[in-house]
């Protein structure tokens, strides 16, 4: 470890020196900036995201780079703190002068960086969920994950298909849960679904039995929907099973990872959630255009890092690939040209979905890109 430390120190000294005597650039790399929540409460997002970026920047460079120029990844860990994210974004656009930013693991960190990045006129592809990031559209801000509104729509649609009209909602008080709750409450009436119980938990809670008991005792509840991320939904799921509630149970895309299955164990049986096809690549029909992309990403990731792939890494994959695609289309790193190119991307097949960007839609994927998965025998199962 001390060796690693020494190397790190050497690297630090080198970067500092490079910063001071700026100028000596030989190959003019394309600078991809990134700030991610690699540590802290959102590390389950930032960690696979960073791994994905590192791995694919390597791969692209091995294959000759983009426009004949190598990619250079400049990354900072914001630890989930919005102020830190804003400062690192400032460093990226003002000090490192990156060409494009792919990052922002959470909505909070993304939104804190947005005003600055907008002013600096640097293209920014966010990896966070909330609908506010791209609605209203901001010229320089794009995002790859489906919005939480889309997730809510997809879940409620599935409920409706099963004839459910009255539901209980339980959500976290963190940014993801809050925004998800608002979107669900907003979308529900449009889809003819009534939210009859609405409770929350704080991300640091270690037991949600009280909240679930409250939902269970609300008359008329036909299904329960948990909008949250991190380990809390796993606790909710286990408490749900413990209390023996036998209503249909839904989670959000915030927990769409194999890790979640391990945490909940048998308690997860029968629950459903919206997710990208990344979790069930082999169940996709061969006609599905995403099948090949998803399989390739999954096997590459698992081989390189020796750990299970998660949907969140997929967001970073799509972000990086969209950035590369846009730079290639623009034929340069001219920011306005790259921005325009991003807006014009149509039918790009990614891990998350098929992206159709436009000047009025900087997200490009809708509820239909979500697949509904159900847990059966401890495995994800695609519901057709």
């Amino acid at each position, binding site marked *: *470890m001390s060796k690693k430390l020494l190397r790190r120190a050497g690297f630090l000294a080198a970067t500092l020196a490079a910063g001071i005597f700026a100028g000596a650039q030989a190959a003019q790399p394309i600078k991809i900036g990134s700030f991610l929540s690699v*540590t*802290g*409460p959102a*590390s*389950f997002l930032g*960690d696979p995201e960073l791994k994905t970026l590192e791995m694919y920047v390597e791969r692209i460079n091995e294959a000759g780079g983009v426009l004949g120029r190598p990619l250079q990844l400049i990354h900072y860990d914001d630890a989930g703190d919005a102020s830190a994210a804003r400062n690192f974004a400032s460093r990226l656009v003002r000090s490192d002068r990156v060409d494009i930013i792919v990052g922002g693991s959470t909505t909070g960190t993304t939104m804190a960086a947005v005003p600055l990045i907008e002013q600096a006129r640097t293209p920014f592809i966010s990896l966070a969920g909330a609908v506010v990031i791209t609605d209203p559209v901001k010229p320089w801000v794009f995002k790859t994950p489906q919005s939480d509104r889309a997730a809510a729509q997809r879940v409620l649609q599935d409920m409706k298909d099963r004839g459910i009209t009255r539901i209980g909602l339980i959500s976290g*008080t963190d940014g993801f849960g809050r925004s998800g709750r608002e979107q669900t409450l907003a979308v529900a009436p449009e889809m003819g679904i009534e939210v009859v119980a609405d*409770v*929350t*938990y*704080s991300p*640091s809670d*270690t*037991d949600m*039995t*009280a*909240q679930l*008991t*409250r939902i269970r*005792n609300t008359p008329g509840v036909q299904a329960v929907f948990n909008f949250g991320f*991190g*380990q809390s939904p*796993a*606790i909710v799921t286990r408490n749900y099973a*413990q*209390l*023996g509630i036998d209503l249909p149970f839904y989670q959000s895309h915030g927990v769409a990872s194999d*890790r979640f299955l*391990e*945490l909940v*164990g*048998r308690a997860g049986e029968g629950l459903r959630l919206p997710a990208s096809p990344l979790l069930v690549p082999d169940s996709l029909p061969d006609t599905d255009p995403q099948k090949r992309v998803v399989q390739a990403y999954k096997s590459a990731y698992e081989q390189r890092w020796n750990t299970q792939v998660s949907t969140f890494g997929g967001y970073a994959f799509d972000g990086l690939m969209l950035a590369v695609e846009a730079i290639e289309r623009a034929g340069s790193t001219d920011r306005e040209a790259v921005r325009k190119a991003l807006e014009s991307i149509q039918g790009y097949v990614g891990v998350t979905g098929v992206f159709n960007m436009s000047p009025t839609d900087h997200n490009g994927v809708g509820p239909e890109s979500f697949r509904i998965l159900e847990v059966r025998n401890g495995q994800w199962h695609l519901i057709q």
Partner: protein
Amino acid sequence: MFAEFIQYLFTGITIGATYALVALGFTLIYNASHVINFAQGEFLMIGGMATVSLLGMGFPMPVAIVLAVMLAGIIGVALQRFAIAPAKQADVVTLIIITIGASIFIRGIAQLVWGKEYHVMPNFSSDEPIRLFGAVLNSQSFWVLGIGALLVVALVLFFTRTLMGKAILATSMNKDAARLVGIRTQMVLMLAFMLSALLGSMAGVTVAPITFTAYDIGIMLGLKGFVAAALGGLGSGVGAVVGGLLLGVVEAMTAGYISSDYKDAVAFSMILLVLFFMPRGLFGSRVVERV
């Protein structure tokens, strides 16, 4: 209605028992050295994480638990020896910052060694929930309560029946006098940190099956433990237990009956209210200012 109440009550008591054990850890160290150890939560984390990782290496659960608790004890002694003892002349706030630094350091190492992911720990016994008066309870809750009660009893016996325990009590009352009668106060301080680490890690191990465990789980549990200790009255063992249970029950009741959004706010308001009327907590000693 009654079933609901029982459900909330048991939920509160289970989590409250954890708070109580953390609060007891605070109390032990506070009594021996008047330091508030903000790294107390990290002992919980070490207990849980070390057990999980030892289980992963194939150790049987009892062995894993014993080893994990021992590890925490060693870290507790090291904390006293290398971080608190060299700074004994420092201000109260400075000591607080040192323990905060220590907690960040320990967490940083845990993150390197064990990674950032949440881990599952199996229940000590069956996974089947237990039904009681219409309420459903996790069998692990009984382990938490049982082990908690056992530890409290053991602690009481330790302080009243053993020479070591009496030495700690003597040191907490008057350090100089204790030194005069031949008690090695540095030893006693180390012992207090070790005991406190053992308590914390046991709490961490027993609740891990309910809450999962990760490198950063100690922050909030540690803070709640401090709250419970202050509520009960710093330095009072009974206070720590009552404070912990009360805090847990109030949280669960608020989440169940009032608003889960403001659960923590209600708990904190209760503390303010208690402190307004009882400036030394529920069971704090009423010391007279000596001038």
